[in-house]
């Protein structure tokens, strides 16, 4: 693979990463968000896979494939089980379950969220300047893109009001951080990578159980219901 092709493909992967995050900010249906998350995981995995193929680094290639399995298949698969399947218009449950399939009542409207996202992107580039200055290689240049994804994850976390949305938001944030790691240093040391992946998997499992309990206790996953504890 030539250096030019590698750079183009790398930027393409970063672009898809960013676009999927924008899509998650833009859209309301949770199913779409979960699918975008899977696309995001695949784009993230493409970064180490491309690096491995370009530098003939089998270790990096292996890490990339593992990341792909975890973030493009396993985690979105677990999340998809939390979103009720779309039901036909004739189904009487259509009305009651609507809130479980869409993000309802986010703290910030779509337009405002998109505008804040625009600001976040600019901020990410500003914040990322020292990184690029330290090592102006093609992959470091794309790191601000990943930082922007991190900021979008934070934005989603702060504004979304559904349990599943918040998990999606956290995973977006985490994908962004993983992308920063791959772009800056071709990933962190193996033991840390393994530990972090395990933590992430456990996090999703734990929040999955909590979401299920929330449905039982609160009859839904609207986090606005969580108002018992306060000063």
């Amino acid at each position, binding site marked *: 693979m030539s250096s030019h092709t590698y750079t183009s493909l790398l930027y393409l992967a970063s672009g898809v990463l*960013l676009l999927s995050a924008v899509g998650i900010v833009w859209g309301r249906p949770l199913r779409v968000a979960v699918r975008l998350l899977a696309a995001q995981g695949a784009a993230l995995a493409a970064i180490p896979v491309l690096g491995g193929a370009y530098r003939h680094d089998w270790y990096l290639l292996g890490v990339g494939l593992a990341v792909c399995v975890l973030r493009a298949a396993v985690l979105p698969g677990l999340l998809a089980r939390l979103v009720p399947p779309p039901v036909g218009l004739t189904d009487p449950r259509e009305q009651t379950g609507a809130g479980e399939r869409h993000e309802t009542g986010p703290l910030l409207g779509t*337009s405002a969220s*998109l505008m804040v996202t*625009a600001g976040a*992107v600019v901020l990410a580039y500003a914040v990322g*300047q020292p990184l*690029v*200055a330290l090592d102006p290689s093609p992959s470091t240049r794309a790191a*601000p*893109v990943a930082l922007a994804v991190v900021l979008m994850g934070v934005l989603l976390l702060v504004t979304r009001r559904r349990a599943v949305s918040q998990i999606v938001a956290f995973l977006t944030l985490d994908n962004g951080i993983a992308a920063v790691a791959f772009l800056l240093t071709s990933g962190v040391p193996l033991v840390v990578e393994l530990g972090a992946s395990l933590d992430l998997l456990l996090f999703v499992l734990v929040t999955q159980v909590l979401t299920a309990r929330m449905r039982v206790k609160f009859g839904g996953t609207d986090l606005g219901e969580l108002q018992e504890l306060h000063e």
Partner: protein
Amino acid sequence: MLSVSGVAGMVTQVVGVAAGAPLLVGWMRQVRARLEGRAGPGPAQPWRDLRKQLHKQNITPDGTTVVFAAAPVVLAGTSLVIAAIVPGVTTGSPLDRVGDLFAVVGVLLLGTVALALAGLDTGTAFGGMGASRVVTIAALVEPTILVAGVALSVPAHSSNLGRIVATTAADPGLVASPAAALAFAALAVVVVAETGRLPVDNPATHLELTMVHEAMILEYTGPRLALIEWAAAMRLTVLLTLLVNLFVPWGVAGAGAGPAGLLVGLGAVAFKVAALGTALAAAEVFLAKLRLFRVPELLAGSFLLGLLAATTSYFLTGPAG
């Protein structure tokens, strides 16, 4: 630096747009009609409509001022100026030196504002409503065109439209970059919004709750209405031309091209614009109009795409630091 080729190219462009714009609108209506299973009036129908309008009498509503009378002229004038600037047939237009992206956006906005003022000038509820809606849309559309344009101008190191088109023509690989793809998506949305097509505005409606453009021009009749319709068609044409040539610049004549080159350029651009128009019309068949309060969401999204395009383009290909 007036070159014969450049002047000839510019004249070709202006004449081509002036004559072709109603045909494009007619063609798009015809495509739509066929897809919906209707026979359709044929592509020349807008010209026949214009002729009919021109034979009617001008009516000036009571209480309107010179703004009302001047708006159609301003609108048509700005459309013609843009037609002269944009690199449609040739990149060597003598106005090319001022043919900066920012100038085009400014001139475009001038026409929009003129029409919005005319809508207000009539003092009717519809006029005001239409003006308010169109300004809401314009406030989001213009910055989007600007940021998307910045994204495209980075590889060419110039915001000059001719230069951008020439650079892209020289290196077709640029089109495949993420920045260009993002910019295309952003521009496509704003062109749709700016020209009042579905899903932002329905060009075929007179239903007061949904219309934007039609609401402003409700009081116009006769030659003035013809002028406005003609100018609106020209805006659609030049914006589609701009969109198509920024990303697919094949066939555009260079700065010193002869008559043959200009002819090829004219044919190429006519074909490309017709193809894009067909695609747009076909897409409209499957689209419903967005509720008005969702429109800002769409436009905010396209602004974000444009901004992403600009930042990506600047930071990934720009100089270090």
